[in-house]
């Protein structure tokens, strides 16, 4: 192990402090006894208790979860299909245009995406509610899925699909039995990405949500405008916990799979 020089130690500390001090403060104050957010008055979990009884927050959380599950699933299907076509179909007229258009929403300002979707929904007379949020989230998150999946497909050995066809698969069977199981990790991480994007989206959701459906970020944002309550801190702490657990679990799964693969390959090399 190399010892870090004092310069590196300082930069590391500063960097992490910059990233995590706000969150640490938020977590600490979620356990504050006092109703005043900035004054510490002893440890308590009472805000968590109150949170569970706050029906408005619970409703918003339920809406958010449903929106995230539906939109990320829809985005994964569409994004994977788009990635597959763009990577596989080789050259066709307008291919560059199409792939450029797939990635444009990545850099499109959210306000513009939100506004244009709002105009569309009004134009076709679609009542704003869960459905419109799902559609809007699908629209902006499918390009993220498409990026993740196509980067996997580029390195995918196409002869595997040809082998499947050669052994009697129809093209659809070849995709289901060979391609999909192999690119599954990329598809799953695309889904997770879409899921988290949908969970924390505020701008697009506020354009496309209606009175019948409010997502958690909208709820938090509007609650904060009336003053930060310790309840919000508690809610945010829970969200941080969920995201942290999710990220750690995902990275552990990938790491274990990689380690197993390496061990297997070493074992194979020994038997050679």
């Amino acid at each position, binding site marked *: 192990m190399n010892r870090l020089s004092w310069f590196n130690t300082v930069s590391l500390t500063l960097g992490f402090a910059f990233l995590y001090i706000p969150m640490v403060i938020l977590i600490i104050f979620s356990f504050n006894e006092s109703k005043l957010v900035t004054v510490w008055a002893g440890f308590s979990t009472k805000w968590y208790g109150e949170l569970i009884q706050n029906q408005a927050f619970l409703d918003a959380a339920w809406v958010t979860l449903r929106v995230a599950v539906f939109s990320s699933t829809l985005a994964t299907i569409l994004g994977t299909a788009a990635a597959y076509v763009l990577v596989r179909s080789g050259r066709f007229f307008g291919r560059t245009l199409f792939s450029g258009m797939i990635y444009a929403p990545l850099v499109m300002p959210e306000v513009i995406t939100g506004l244009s979707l709002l105009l569309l929904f009004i134009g076709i007379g679609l009542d704003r509610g869960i459905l419109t949020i799902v559609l809007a989230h699908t629209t902006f998150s499918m390009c993220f899925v498409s990026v993740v999946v196509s980067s996997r497909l580029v390195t995918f*050995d196409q*002869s*595997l699909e*040809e*082998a*499947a*066809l*050669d*052994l*009697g*698969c*129809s093209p659809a*069977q070849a995709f289901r*039995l*060979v391609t999909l*199981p*192999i690119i599954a990790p990329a598809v799953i991480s695309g889904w997770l990405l879409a899921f988290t994007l949908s969970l924390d989206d505020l701008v697009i959701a506020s354009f496309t949500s209606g009175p019948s459906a409010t997502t958690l970020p909208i709820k938090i944002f509007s609650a904060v405008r009336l003053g930060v309550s310790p309840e919000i801190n508690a809610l945010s702490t829970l969200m941080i916990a969920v995201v942290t657990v999710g990220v750690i679990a995902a990275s552990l799964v990938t790491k274990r799979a990689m380690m197993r*693969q390496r061990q*297997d*390959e070493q*074992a*194979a*090399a020994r*038997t*050679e």
Partner: protein
Amino acid sequence: MNATIFAPWDDPQAKPLIQFRNVTKRFGVFTAIDDLSLDIYEREFFALLGPSGCGKTTMMRMLAGFETPTEGHILLGGQDIDPIPPNKRAVNMMFQSYALFPHLSIWDNIAFGLRRDNMPKPDLEARVEEMLRLTRLEQFARRKPHQISGGQRQRVALARSLAKAPKLLLLDEPLGALDKKLRQDTQFELMDIQEKTGTTFVIVTHDQEEAMTVASRVAVMDQGRLMQVATPDRIYETPNSVYVADFIGDVNIIEGRATARTEESYQIDWAEGQPPLTAKSTTALATGQGCHLAIRPEKVTISAERPADAINAIQGEVHDIAYLGNLSTYHVKLANGTIIKAQTANTRRISRRSFTWEDPVWLSWTATAAVLLEH
């Protein structure tokens, strides 16, 4: 013992399994296959040999159904297979990369094709076990492809492509990823398996030694055209062009002008101050016509004195010696600067070698040793 020689290509009654009829394949402006016709017979081990980019892989992919001819037709058992998609053809392919499914065990890889045919379970199990036995993979059945060695993976790929008992098996550079020793063993294993199963094999390779070893017939290709289709010995002994002679093995090419002497015997004047050479040839050449004389190095005899009865004899000095262990190749420089290679078997120890650098020597060969080729 089967006394009859396997040579359906010499039998006018024999029906070919595969027929290429004036097949042309173009990719944009590039012509990969140029008006090519070819018959391949049942139970043949047919090799498509050529440098990369000669169109051999395209021919294989057309047989598998991954490409369709731009013009012309391919017939399998008399039936035009152009409109049939790859999954409906009684043709299986062994891929260069093996293309084993990484998420399936060896057993499931081999069973994959059989499952698509909805084969009843007991039959399927019996067939997979049979394939595992044939390729000596029984103890690896439960492993995943990345848990076995390269040689074993090659055998899994073979077992998987043979499992459906195809009429025709295509092998795309099947041994390219193996090291030399393993490759040689595997070549004989392939021939064994081909004989046991009686399947028609078409192999694509750029390795001429491999093609010569395994194949019943070899097609030498260049730029989308067949240069010569014949048995390995004929390809080697009687190449029909300088390209084929040069592509297969080592060869000395001497350029000259032919003069007919007697029937099938020609005198070749090839250099100022050098005695003319004599060669027999069945192809008729006009007097004064430019020609090439191709002589294999092992057919050139090297000696200190001029052999008394030699028909062709030229003098030179040893310029270089390539010692290969079992053989030595002498590069002999003639008075006009031409280098002729002569090969001898090292039956004696190297310390007893008769010639060394800069020794004056005589090179000689018979009238039938060389092949006379038109320009």
